[in-house]
């Protein structure tokens, strides 16, 4: 791969991802509305798509206020971390054969590491805001992440066992005959649940929980800094969706009448829609319920899954 090609891919991925994240504002509002028997924003531009521009402009022109009691440097840094770490994770995602920024041989570990760094933005943001509710949100965010990170990683290990590689392109190639959703259904479901918790989306938006904590860790944020958290969340959704696609649903693989990247985006988009559907349908669990399901049900389940996968893998190898 030449340098120009590489730069093109990097710029392309960045461009596409940021646009998807912005476009999701519209997608989410429209889809949520449809699922609630409403129409949603449909005035600005065809089907209301320019609401994205309007929303972005609005965020830019909002007063960007840093509370005088906040820890300024950390306060400014926090929103950048969430966007940065989420975007960095896309480095290892293979969109189509050859279209990947860096096909690291520790790709999966890189993804897990980046998603762990993402939680720093919540903790730092909540801490630097110097506000009780923000701090509570940050605390919840941190404990939720620790709980769910554990079996998020473990649920992916089944796939790694079957493939024998951390490299994402190898994992996709290993699904040539059969997608891993068939061999690893439990892992797929658990990974998705952990993914929702990881992006702190509804129903697991415990760190922000509007009804209990106002807006949790970003209560003090305004203007584009809040916008960064917002965009970070959407990039997170896209990331988890594309990880689901890559790990369990055969990545770019699909019948040949569509190009590989199209298959990848169709599958990813289906998961994004599912994220929004979950938001439309499920209520938020209580904080202790969330932790309890995490540690007492999902963790043992994923360990059993790992054990069985390992046993079967050994047995078939003879």
């Amino acid at each position, binding site marked *: 791969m030449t340098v120009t090609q590489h730069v093109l891919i990097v710029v392309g991925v960045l461009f596409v991802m940021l646009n998807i994240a912005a476009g999701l504002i519209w997608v989410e509002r429209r889809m949520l*509305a*449809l*699922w*609630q*028997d*409403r*129409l949603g924003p*449909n005035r600005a531009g065809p089907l209301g798509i320019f609401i994205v521009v309007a929303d972005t402009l609005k965020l830019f022109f909002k007063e960007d206020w840093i509370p005088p009691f906040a820890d300024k440097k950390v306060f400014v840094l926090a929103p950048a971390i969430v966007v940065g770490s989420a975007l960095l994770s896309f480095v290892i995602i293979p969109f189509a054969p050859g279209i990947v920024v860096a096909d690291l041989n520790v790709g999966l570990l890189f993804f897990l590491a980046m998603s762990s760094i993402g939680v720093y933005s919540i903790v730092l943001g909540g801490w630097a805001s110097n506000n009780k509710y923000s701090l509570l949100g940050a605390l919840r965010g941190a404990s939720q992440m620790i709980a769910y990170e554990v079996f998020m990683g473990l649920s992916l290990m089944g796939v790694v066992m079957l493939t024998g590689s951390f490299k994402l392109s190898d994992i996709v190639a290993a699904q040539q005959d059969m997608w891993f959703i068939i061999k690893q259904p439990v892992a797929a479901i658990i990974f998705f649940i952990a993914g929702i918790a990881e992006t702190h989306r509804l129903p697991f938006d415990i760190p922000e929980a509007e009804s209990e904590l106002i807006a949790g860790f970003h209560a003090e944020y305004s203007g584009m800094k809040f916008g960064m958290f917002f965009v970070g969340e959407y990039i997170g959704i896209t990331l988890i969706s594309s990880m689901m696609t890559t790990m369990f649903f055969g990545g770019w693989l699909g019948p040949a009448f569509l190009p590989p990247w199209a298959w990848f985006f169709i599958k990813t988009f289906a998961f994004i829609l599912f994220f929004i*559907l*979950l938001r*439309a*349908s*499920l209520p938020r669990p209580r904080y202790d319920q969330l932790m309890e399901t995490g540690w007492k049900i999902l963790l043992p389940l994923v360990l059993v899954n790992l054990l069985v996968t390992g046993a079967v893998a050994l047995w078939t190898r003879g």
Partner: protein
Amino acid sequence: MFSHIRTIWLTFLHLFKKKVTIEYPEEKVKLHPRWRGRIVLTKDPDGGERCVGCYLCAAACPVDCIALQATEDENGRRYPEFFRINFSRCIFCGFCEEACPTYAIQLIPDFEMGEYKRQNLVFEKEDLLINSQGKYPGYNFYQVAGIQAGVKGKGEGDNEEPPVDVHSLLP
């Protein structure tokens, strides 16, 4: 767990349900005849102003947005010299309509009165007065009132007896 999946599925089915949204400027909202909206001053069947300038509406208004000045014409008929409603303060409660003894002030089903300048929301009598009897056709206050104001003579109204000559009762 099963109930969660069922919830998700049922929510998904709502995608195909009929939407409740009314797309307003193209599609109008159905307003009922007694919907409380823009305020008008009505006229009686003879085309005279119904308002007698009694100030009851101004007194009843909880936000004090009605201002008027009563006066009389050469026949002794009372009418408002000016009548001003500040719609930027009006809360469309309808108290003025209830207070009015002559059915003059009425709220009609119309809410499309947006303005760019606040001052334009102050309606004068010319803006309020309409050439119609509104919700109470056929009613004419001076026809049933006991006084003479150029509409009918004293004692000539419906359900009214001619005035008694008090002196004739003397023994």
